[in-house]
C-alpha cells in the first residue's frame, strides 16, 4: 500500500508564482503509518485527510467564528431544524460534481456506523434530508444549537465512491482518495507524505502552494527540534524547550511562533471527600497556587495563567461578565489563603500542620502522570504551595493510563485535569460539570471527574444546549462562570498551549497574535491564506 515514488523537487518558485512546496511536520498515523485516508478513523488516518476532504463550515477556532465552506448559508428555521445551502460549482477531485446527496449520504453513513460518528452528531440529529441538490435539511431530536460547531469537524465524502464500499469502518481509502479539498495525495511512504495542489479546487485561486510535504516526526523529540531550528520545516506544531534561543534567535527575521491558549488545566479535587467537599475550603484555596511560577518554570513561559471562570481569556473575554476582576485570573497570595483556610475552619495545629474539621492533620495525595515532565514540574510547585500552607501532600507519579483510569473512577484526592477551550460553550461546561457526565465513585465518569453535582449548574448547561440566540447563551455562560468563581468545582491554573511554529522564508500569511484569523489547527483556513513570501516572488 504505497504510492508512487515522489520526485524530489528542487526548491524554488513553483508554477505561476506559487510556492513550489512547503515542509510540514508530522502527518499522524502512528510510528509506522499506513496509507489511510478515511477521515473518520481518527486513530489511524493520516493528516492528508484534512486537506483532501472538506466540511460544511469551518471554524476559526481562535475567534470562534463559523465560516461558510461547502455550505454557503445555514438557517435555523426552528430550534430543531437547520437548513444548509450548499456551494455550487464544487467538484470532487475525480471530476464528479458535489451535491446534497453526498452530504445526506455522509450523515446517513455516520448514523449507520456508530464507529464513524466520532463527533457524536447523531446524539442530536434525527434526520438529514436533501431538499434539493443544493439544500440539505437537518432535523434534531431536541434544540440543536449546541451541536452546531460539530459540523465544522465532519468531513463530507463522495457518495459515488463510498456507497460501493462494503464496510466503511474498515475502509482505508488508500488509493487516490476522492475529496473536494485543495490537495490530492501525490505520494506516500511511512516517512513522507506529499500532497499536490488540486487545480480544480473551488477556490483554487487562494491556494498558493503547489505541494505540501509532511515528514514523519519522532514525536517532538530532539531531532525534530533540531530540524525545526535549522529551518527544515516551514511550519510545525510541537513543544520546543527554550523556543526563543533554540528557534527564533536562529533566524529572528523568519522564525516565529505563536502559542494560543487551549483548554484550562485545573486542580481537580475529589468532591466526594472531606475537606474537598467543603465549598469554603475550596474557595480558600484559590489564591494558594502560584500560577505565574508554574507558567514560568514548568511551562517555560509559553502559556498564561488560567482564569477561574473556566473560559479562555483573552480569546473568550467577550463571554465574561464585566464585574469579574482581572478576568477571573486569581493572584498568588499565600497569606490570604492561609487566613481564609483558618477562617473556613481549617486552622493550623501546634506543629504548623493544617487540621481538618475532625482535628486531624489534613493529608492527601496529588498525582500527575509520571511521564509528563512539565506536569511533574508543576506538581512540585503545587505541592510546595500546599505544603507551605501546612498540608501534608504526597506527590505521586503513576503512568498516564493508571492516572486516567483512577481519575475516571474517582479514585484520587487531588490531581490535574483538562477542560474547556473549545468554541462550543456547551461542551466547555457540560463536560466537566454536568451531573450526567458524572458517575458514582468506582464507576467511570464520562468527563465530570470531580463529580460536581449541582442542579443549578445542570439547568444552566441545559439552557446553553438549547439556546440558539447569543444573548441567552451569554447569560447562561455568565452564570456558569459565577458558579466557577463562587463554588469552585475546580481550580484552573494555566492554559494548555497550542504549539505552532512557522517560517516566513517561503510563505507569509500565517496566523499569529497580530492577525489571529485562525487557530493553528485550522488547516484549511491557513492554507487558503498563505501567500508567497516577498511581493516580487514569481
Amino acid at each position, binding site marked *: 500500500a504505497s504510492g508512487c515514488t515522489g520526485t524530489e523537487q528542487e526548491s524554488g518558485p513553483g508554477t505561476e508564482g506559487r510556492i513550489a512546496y512547503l515542509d510540514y511536520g508530522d502527518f499522524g498515523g502512528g510510528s509506522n503509518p499506513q496509507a489511510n485516508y478515511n477521515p473518520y478513523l481518527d486513530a489511524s488516518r493520516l493528516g492528508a485527510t484534512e486537506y483532501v476532504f472538506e466540511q460544511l463550515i469551518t471554524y476559526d477556532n481562535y475567534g470562534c467564528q463559523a465560516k461558510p465552506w461547502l455550505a454557503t448559508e445555514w438557517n435555523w428555521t426552528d430550534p430543531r431544524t437547520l437548513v444548509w445551502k450548499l456551494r455550487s460549482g464544487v467538484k470532487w477531485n475525480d471530476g464528479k460534481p458535489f451535491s446534497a446527496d453526498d452530504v445526506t449520504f455522509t450523515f446517513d453513513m455516520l448514523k449507520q456506523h456508530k464507529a464513524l460518528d466520532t463527533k457524536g452528531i447523531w446524539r442530536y440529529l434525527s434526520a438529514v434530508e436533501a431538499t434539493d441538490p443544493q439544500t440539505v435539511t437537518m432535523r434534531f431530536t431536541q434544540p440543536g444549537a449546541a451541536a452546531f460547531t460539530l459540523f465544522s469537524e465532519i468531513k463530507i465524502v463522495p457518495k459515488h465512491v463510498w456507497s460501493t464500499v462494503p464496510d466503511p469502518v474498515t475502509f482505508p481509502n488508500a488509493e487516490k482518495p476522492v475529496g473536494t479539498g485543495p490537495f490530492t495525495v501525490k505520494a506516500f511512504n511511512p516517512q513522507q507524505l506529499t500532497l499536490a495542489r488540486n487545480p480544480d479546487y473551488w477556490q483554487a485561486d487562494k491556494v498558493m502552494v503547489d505541494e505540501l510535504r509532511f515528514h514523519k516526526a519522532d514525536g517532538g523529540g530532539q531531532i525534530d527540534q533540531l530540524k525545526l531550528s535549522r529551518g527544515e520545516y516551514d511550519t510545525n506544531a510541537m513543544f520546543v524547550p527554550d523556543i526563543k534561543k533554540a528557534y527564533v534567535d536562529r533566524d529572528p527575521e523568519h522564525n516565529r511562533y505563536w502559542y494560543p491558549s*487551549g483548554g484550562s488545566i485545573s486542580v481537580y479535587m475529589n468532591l466526594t471527600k472531606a475537606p474537598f467537599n467543603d465549598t469554603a475550603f475550596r474557595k480558600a484555596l484559590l489564591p494558594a497556587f502560584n500560577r505565574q511560577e508554574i507558567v514560568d518554570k514548568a511551562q517555560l513561559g509559553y502559556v498564561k495563567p488560567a482564569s477561574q471562570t473556566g473560559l479562555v481569556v483573552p480569546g473568550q473575554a467577550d463571554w465574561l461578565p464585566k464585574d469579574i476582576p482581572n478576568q477571573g485570573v486569581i493572584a498568588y497570595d499565600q497569606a490570604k489563603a492561609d487566613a481564609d483556610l483558618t477562617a473556613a475552619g481549617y486552622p493550623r495545629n501546634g506543629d504548623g500542620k493544617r487540621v481538618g474539621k475532625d482535628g486531624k492533620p489534613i493529608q492527601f495525595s496529588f498525582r500527575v502522570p509520571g511521564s509528563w515532565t512539565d506536569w511533574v514540574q508543576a506538581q512540585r510547585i503545587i505541592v510546595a504551595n500546599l505544603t507551605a500552607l501546612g498540608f501534608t501532600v504526597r506527590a505521586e507519579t503513576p503512568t498516564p493510563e493508571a492516572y486516567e483510569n483512577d481519575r475516571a473512577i474517582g479514585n484520587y484526592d487531588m490531581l490535574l485535569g*483538562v477542560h474547556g477551550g473549545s468554541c462550543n460553550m456547551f461542551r466547555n461546561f457540560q463536560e466537566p460539570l454536568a451531573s450526567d457526565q458524572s458517575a458514582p465513585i468506582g464507576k467511570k465518569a464520562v468527563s465530570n471527574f470531580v463529580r460536581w453535582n449541582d442542579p443549578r449548574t445542570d439547568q444552566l448547561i441545559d439552557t446553553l444546549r438549547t439556546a440558539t440566540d447569543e444573548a441567552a447563551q451569554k447569560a447562561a455562560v455568565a452564570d456558569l462562570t459565577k458558579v466557577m468563581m463562587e463554588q469552585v468545582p475546580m481550580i484552573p491554573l494555566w492554559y494548555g498551549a497550542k504549539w505552532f511554529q512557522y517560517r516566513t522564508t517561503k510563505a507569509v500569511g500565517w496566523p499569529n497574535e497580530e492577525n489571529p484569523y485562525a487557530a493553528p489547527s485550522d488547516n484549511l483556513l491557513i492554507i487558503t491564506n498563505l501567500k508567497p513570501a516577498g511581493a516580487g516572488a514569481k
Partner: protein
Amino acid sequence: MAYFVRRFLFFLGTLWAAVTLNFLIPRLQPGDPAEAIVSRLAGQSESIDPAQVQAIRVMLGTPDGNLFDQYVQYLGAVLHGDFGISYTYFPYSVTHMIGQALPWTVILVGVTQIISFVVGTLLGTWAAYRRNSRVDSVITLGSTFLGTLPFFWLALLLVYVFAITLRWFPERGGYGGGSSPGWNWLFISDAFQHSVLPAVALLITGPIGWIIGMRNNMVQSLGEDHTRLAVARGLPRRRVAITYGARIAILPNVTGFAIALGGILGGTVLVETVFNYPGMGRLLLESVSSRDYPLMQAIFLFTTIGVLVANFLADLLYGFLDPRVRKVESV
C-alpha cells in the same frame, strides 16, 4: 524416545504458558484502548472528547463474552495465525503491521548481531592468543569501556555528530521520504544509509560479551592438557590456537548466539526509539503504550516463540557441535 517426547512436551508447555501470559498481561493493565487512543490523539493539554471515545470503542468492538471465552477465542485465533486487526493502525491487520516491521528489525538487528558475534569472537580469540600482551589489554579494556556505554545515549551522540552536525548520514527512520520500499537500487542504498548509524550504535556495544566470553573460554582451553599435548606434538602455534583453543572455546558462545538470534524478533526498543527505526521494538513500545492488545499479543507471541525455538534449536545445535554432550542429557 521418551526423552525427546518429554523435552518437546516441556517446550509446548512453556509455549502455552507464554501464550497465556501474553493474553493476560495486556488485560491486566489498567486503561481502555479507546481512551488511550483518544488521549494520545488529544495530547496532554487538551480535553478528551467523550463522543470520540465512544465511537472508537464501537469501532474496536467490545470483546465477546467473559475473560475465559475471550481466552478460548484467542487460543483458537492464534492457532490459525489470525491475530486480528491492530487498534492503532485500524483497519490494517496485525499480520500486515508485523510483516512491515519484521524485515527491518531482522535485517538491522540480525546483521549487527552476526557481525558482533563474528567480530567479538575474532577479537576475543586474538586477545586470548596474545594473552597479557598490549593487544590483549587494548581489546579487553577498550571493549569493556565501549561496550558499557549506554547505547541509547551513544545513539543520541552519534545522531548529533554524524547526522546533525556532519550530515553524513540521515538522522532517523529506515529510509527517506523520497524512496518507496521495494527491490530497487535507490531504495536499498537509501535504506542502507539509514541503517548505518543504528548499526554502528549496536556494533559498538554488541561485541563486548562475545569478546570477553571468547577470551575467557579460550584462555581456559589453552590451559588444558590437550592443548599442552598439542604443543608437545609439535603442532604449529596457530593451529593449536585454532583447533585446540578457539574451536572449543566457541562452543558455549554458539548457544548464546543462537538465543540472541531468537531474541532479535523483539527488536531493540531503545535503539529503534532513538532512531525512529520502523522495526519491531518500536512497534512493541507503541502497542504497549496505546493498549493495542492485538498487536501487543502478536508481538509478544513472536518474540516468545523466537526465543523458545531458538532455545530449543540451540540445545540441538549444541549437541551437534559439541560431541561431548551428544549422549549426555542436557540439564
